[in-house]
């Protein structure tokens, strides 16, 4: 058998047969299922545990009707400010809002204040402000000479829809995605970018550790008296990569099953009141908007999977190859001290994190200069290009990006191989980045 194949086989089999592999492969989807389940639970609980707010309006101008709310209950109090300040918690309120006397038409801004049992979030403060503004507005409308019906006519809500969605617009030219599909695309985009980020770090560091183990246990000298260092490095990268693909394949089967099971468990009538609550919430959501699920499925189906999936796999493999070979180079240079690896890993961590930071900018402007640059540079493209894919970038950009990626794979594995072959035989010296650079130019 070919020597590289033998190495791939050993790297693959020794990992897949480990107990920890089985545990991680099975427990991760279970963990995801648990998180979804808990998230559902908390979402249901979150809407249930609403705040109770007592409002002391010294001018007495706000009406109880104006303060009615769905999630937050507002109660007007007749008590004195001083006593209410001390007793609002005892009386079962979470927050007290104090509105000092309001002198009409003198100030654009009216300063009001609050006392709260717990620290308020920015969102909660804004919610209260909005509510008070609306109540004041209602009051002012009530007491103004303006015609209420005429005012109502001023309000207008604009809905922007893509005309291409309309069946009658067959001859028109343009993109056919709806607002909804943009949201789905963004989610998909971030999901794929994040998956690449995880793959790079999890499997990249797996390759790095494995290189370090071989170096520390000194088996490496025996190995490279039988095979070339590059064969050893390549065999390791491919072997670990196959482990990753196996794990992904298992997850692709298990995760949908678990998600279906948990959703069904949450949908079915359950013993605990929280579960019933969740089921009700889901039902209510469906009643309010009966075709949400349908649109979602339709939009999901309309995504160009035939393009996205194969291209994603190409970038998945390319990104994995580039980064894991660089991680292998770092591992070869580190030796027995794991602490030393931090400094050497920096040049690898930075581009990955930069690419992650670029993702939001990519889906605000999927064809902007930053997105295009990011999807061309081989250290960024494995994360940025998959993130752009749901927004259907021009074909020539995908093709060019793949070409550059392949060039990147060849260049970086070659570079890593140069460093690796020197590093694995180097002992007892703390290696700096500068030295790593020098190793590239060593003779064999």
């Amino acid at each position, binding site marked *: 058998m070919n020597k590289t194949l*033998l190495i791939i086989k050993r790297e693959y089999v020794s990992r897949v047969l480990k107990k920890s592999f089985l545990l991680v492969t099975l427990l991760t989807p279970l963990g995801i299922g648990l998180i979804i389940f808990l998230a559902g639970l908390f979402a249901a609980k979150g809407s249930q545990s609403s705040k109770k707010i007592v409002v002391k309006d010294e001018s007495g101008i706000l009406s109880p009707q104006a303060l009615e709310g769905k999630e937050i209950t507002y109660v007007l109090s007749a008590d004195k400010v001083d006593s209410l300040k001390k007793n609002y918690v005892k009386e079962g309120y979470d927050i007290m809002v104090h509105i000092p006397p309001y002198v009409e038409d003198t100030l654009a801004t009216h300063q009001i204040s609050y006392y709260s049992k717990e620290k308020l979030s920015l969102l909660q403060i804004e919610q209260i402000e909005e509510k008070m503004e609306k109540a004041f507005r209602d009051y002012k409308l009530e007491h103004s000479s303006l015609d209420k019906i005429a005012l109502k006519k001023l309000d207008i809500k604009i809905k922007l829809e893509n005309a291409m969605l309309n069946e009658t617009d067959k001859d028109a030219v343009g993109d056919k995605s709806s607002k909804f599909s943009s949201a789905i695309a963004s989610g998909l985009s971030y999901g794929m970018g994040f998956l690449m980020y995880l793959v790079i770090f999890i499997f990249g560091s797996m390759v790095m550790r494995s290189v370090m183990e071989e170096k520390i246990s*000194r088996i490496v000298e*025996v190995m490279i*008296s*039988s095979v070339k260092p590059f064969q050893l490095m390549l065999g390791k990268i491919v072997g670990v990569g196959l482990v990753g693909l196996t794990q992904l394949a298992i997850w692709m089967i298990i995760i949908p099953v678990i998600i279906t099971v948990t959703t069904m468990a949450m949908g079915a009538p359950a013993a605990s009141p929280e579960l019933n609550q969740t089921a009700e919430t889901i039902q209510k959501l469906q009643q309010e908007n009966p075709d949400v699920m349908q649109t979602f499925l339709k939009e999901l189906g309309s995504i160009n999977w035939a393009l996205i999936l194969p291209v994603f796999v190409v970038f998945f493999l390319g990104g994995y190859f580039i980064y894991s070979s660089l991680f292998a180079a770092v591992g070869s240079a580190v030796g027995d001290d794991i602490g030393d690896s931090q400094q050497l890993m920096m040049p690898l961590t930075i581009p990955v994190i930069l690419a992650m930071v670029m993702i939001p900018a990519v889906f605000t402007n999927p064809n902007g200069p930053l997105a295009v640059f990011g999807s061309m540079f081989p250290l960024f493209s494995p994360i940025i290009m998959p993130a752009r894919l749901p927004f259907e970038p021009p074909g020539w950009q995908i093709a060019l990006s793949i070409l550059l990626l392949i060039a990147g794979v060849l260049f970086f594995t070659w570079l890593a191989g140069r460093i690796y072959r020197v590093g694995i*035989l180097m002992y007892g010296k703390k290696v700096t980045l500068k030295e790593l650079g020098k190793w590239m130019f060593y003779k*064999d």
Partner: protein
Amino acid sequence: MNILSIKEVVKVYQNYTALDHASFEVRKGSIFGLLGPNGAGKTTLIRIITGITRADEGHILLDGAPLNSHHPNEIGYMPEERGLYKKMKVADQLMYLAQLKGMSNEDAKKSIRFWFQRLGMEEWWNKKIEELSKGMQQKVQFVATVAHNPKLLILDEPFTGLDPLNADLLKEEIYKLNQKGVSILFSTHRMEQVEEICNDIVLINKGKILLNDSVKAVRNQFKQNQFVLQTDRAANEWSLPSGFEEVEADGYSRTFRVAAGHQSNELLMHLIQSGINIQSFHEVLPGLNEIFIKLVTQETEPSQPQNHHS
């Protein structure tokens, strides 16, 4: 016929020369000692022969052919720093290493079974390396070195870390392999082992070959014409004739040097004629250890810093 020919090999690292036009031959079927102090260039040379690194200049012939990609399969190499995959089972590990040397699955299994029986390791087949004692691991390492039936065995300090029992066992196996025609290159700085085991040696220091010959010839070359004589009459009762120079006298034995133009037989004749009975008479040959120290210290001009590549 030579199993190995090293011709004018040069290897230069960034700031020093590891091998400086080194040349020597290893006879097929011999046990060859590669000697030298730490940092002399032994490991660099071995790494070049095993294909781990390449020479900058010069040629290396293995069994008459320039080094090629097939040669690693014909060499068994046990580095000074031993290493095995700790979490791997003994048999899996040996199968893997033998297959990487180009053996088929069946051949590898057969060979490993043979060695397991030979060294009494059958019970370790399914054990992990980390479960074995250090001595046991050494045995596994030895099997890994010889399982693929190499033509040339390169052992770098093979006896370090072995207890006397295992060292003897290993020595026995090395002899047996040698009898079957395997050539053995043996790198060490332990002279007594070399004197005992090797036929030929090369002494290397700072990348240069200082000495290359059979052990016997080397010792002859460095002999100082000294003899030890034991008689039935105390040394102080008789004196040496002219042409013989006393080195040391002690009771009934005396050590002396034969001056140029004289033969040791002259003294024997003299003794026989004087009626002094000779009990023993033999030449004093210098130990390799002395020769080694003498040559290396001679060679050592202002000492240079040692290097990590050794």
